[in-house]
């Protein structure tokens, strides 16, 4: 095991890793920008180093400063947390070259999964379902038609040069496709100077469901069940839960096996997450995150496994402590992201936290690096706390979430607490009947 771990991150995840290290008897090094002098991760670390000014590019994203901080403090391993350098293969390489342990997968795995096209091909090759569509641009309307028939309507036409909705057309039947094909091409031509369009299956109400996997250096790879992350806004997750109200044991097994197959294909080691789109019993590979996730606690609550400690053990060359055989998900867990932002406009709302009272009691967990009088700096993301509740079933988790959000007092900055309380009172949410489109309709 390592003697001293440097955490190349800030905020709640940096503190989360520091506390895990403390429990394992490992010394810790916090790095921080000038804006984070008073941050809790700095207070609780055994050692701390200022690595640059507030601007991330010159501090939390400065590879040389972080490596130098490890050198002068004698750290022998680096935990990247999430965001910042956590999925930067170059950083992982340098860490290894400097004779330090990178607490995460191999640089090659990070690089491969970081390339959307390559990741998609790897998944396909590993037999992981991907969204069916045309191989590259369509040559003729007839080709479009035959592909569409083979995968079934509705389908969506997209500009190959694409993006931003221009050149996009959703078609529900052949006649629509015939007319839409040309419109899409001309629109694409006008927009991007290239008329090429391709098509793929259109999902009306997809769910974002991800599988937590974990591999060790002995070639063992396990699935720790799914997380339901469909409640998001502008691709920012708001509420995550496990298990998903939409996934049955059989589907869970199939998704887990697919995730494991993909990881095998890249000799994946340490924690990772495979994101899928799910609809009508079918799931399609979206992408893989080669790091710990913000929402990892919901998996910890239903599996009883401390994912961060497991990361440290596996990185130190130890075996997974996850018991052999099917892992039962116990009870139901939900995470609410408490962001310092306007609950209506979602505009970040940095400032001084004047009152901070945390909820407690059974089944309530809070991960946070904030405290009363802490000043939320404007330079970084607006997450100030994660409220995680656990219940024997989804109904209890929801009622527990409601009372915990009522108990949670934050004054001085606006937060998403009122939004979460509103969502918990939404009939469709309570029924578990929603897709990634939930927030669109909810905000209307």
């Amino acid at each position: 095991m390592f003697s001293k771990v440097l955490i190349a991150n800030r905020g709640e995840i940096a503190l989360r890793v520091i506390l895990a290290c403390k429990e394992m008897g490992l010394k810790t090094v916090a790095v921080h920008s000038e804006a984070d002098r008073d941050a809790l991760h700095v207070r609780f670390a055994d050692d701390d180093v200022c690595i640059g000014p507030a601007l991330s590019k010159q501090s939390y994203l400065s590879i040389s400063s972080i490596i130098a901080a490890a050198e002068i403090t004698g750290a022998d391993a680096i935990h990247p947390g999430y965001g910042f350098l956590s999925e930067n293969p170059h950083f992982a390489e340098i860490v290894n070259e400097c004779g330090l342990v990178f607490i995460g997968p191999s640089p090659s795995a990070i690089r491969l999964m970081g390339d959307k096209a390559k990741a998609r091909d790897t998944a396909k090759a590993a037999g992981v379902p991907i969204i069916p569509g045309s191989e590259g641009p369509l040559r003729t309307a007839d080709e479009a038609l035959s592909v569409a028939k083979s995968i079934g309507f509705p389908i969506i036409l997209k500009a190959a040069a694409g993006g931003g909705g221009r050149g996009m057309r959703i078609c529900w039947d052949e006649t629509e496709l015939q007319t839409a094909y040309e419109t899409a091409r001309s629109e694409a031509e006008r927009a991007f100077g290239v008329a090429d369009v391709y098509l793929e299956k259109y999902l009306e109400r997809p769910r974002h469901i991800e599988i937590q996997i974990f591999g060790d250096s002995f070639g063992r790879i396990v699935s720790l069940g799914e997380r339901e992350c469909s409640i998001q806004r502008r691709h920012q997750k708001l509420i995550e839960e496990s298990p998903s109200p939409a996934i049955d044991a059989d589907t869970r097994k199939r998704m887990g096996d697919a995730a494991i197959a993909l990881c095998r294909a890249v000799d994946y080691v340490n924690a990772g997450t495979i994101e899928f789109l799910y609809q009508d019993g079918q799931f399609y590979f979206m992408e893989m995150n080669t790091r710990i996730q913000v929402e990892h606690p919901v998996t910890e609550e239903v599996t009883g496994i401390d994912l961060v400690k497991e990361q440290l053990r596996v990185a130190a060359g130890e075996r997974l402590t996850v018991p052999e055989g099917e892992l039962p998900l116990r009870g139901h867990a939900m995470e609410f992201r408490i962001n310092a932002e306007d609950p209506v406009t979602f505009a970040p709302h940095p400032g001084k936290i004047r009152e901070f009272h945390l909820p407690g009691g059974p089944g309530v967990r809070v991960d946070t690096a904030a405290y009363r009088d802490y000043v939320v700096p404007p330079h970084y993301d607006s997450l100030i706390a994660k409220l995680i509740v656990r219940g024997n079933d989804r109904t209890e988790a929801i009622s527990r979430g409601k009372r915990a959000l009522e108990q949670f007092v934050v004054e001085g900055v606006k937060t998403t607490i009122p939004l979460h309380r509103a969502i918990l009172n939404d009939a469709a949410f309570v029924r578990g009947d929603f897709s990634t489109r939930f927030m669109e309709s909810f905000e209307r």
Partner: protein
Amino acid sequence: MTFKEILELMAKVAEYGLGAVEIERAGTRIRIEGKPAAARPVSQSLDDGGDVSSRQTLVPSPGAVPLPAASNAPLEEPEAGLHIITSPIVGTFYRSPNPESDAFVSAGDRVSKGKVLCIIEAMKLMNEIECDVDGVLVSVYPQNGQPIEYGENLFAVRV
């Protein structure tokens, strides 16, 4: 902020009969409260009470190593006419190119723009830190071979 400036602020607070003036700048905090008028809301005095206690109490019990005093210095205004050179990078401080040779500079030396003052080693690279003003070197803050944080004081030069 210099001591003189603080006194001036106090005078003005009294003169203008202000409720309170509070200045907070990374690490440094100054609060001046005017005559306690019956009118003045309690909440103000409450807030600062809060600030203070939390700053003291959230310093963790054992374990955590406080920042080297020096590294807070740049936040304060240096003595008038004194120019502080701080470290642009994280690394190990060396006063001479190699253990055998003499220090690049010593207190009392005249220094000029571009003059190499020290080396900071990071990732096996020797980074030469150059002087950015003309003047007389007054003090060298770190010890030879000492670890250096970003922004930590290295030298003081009287311009």
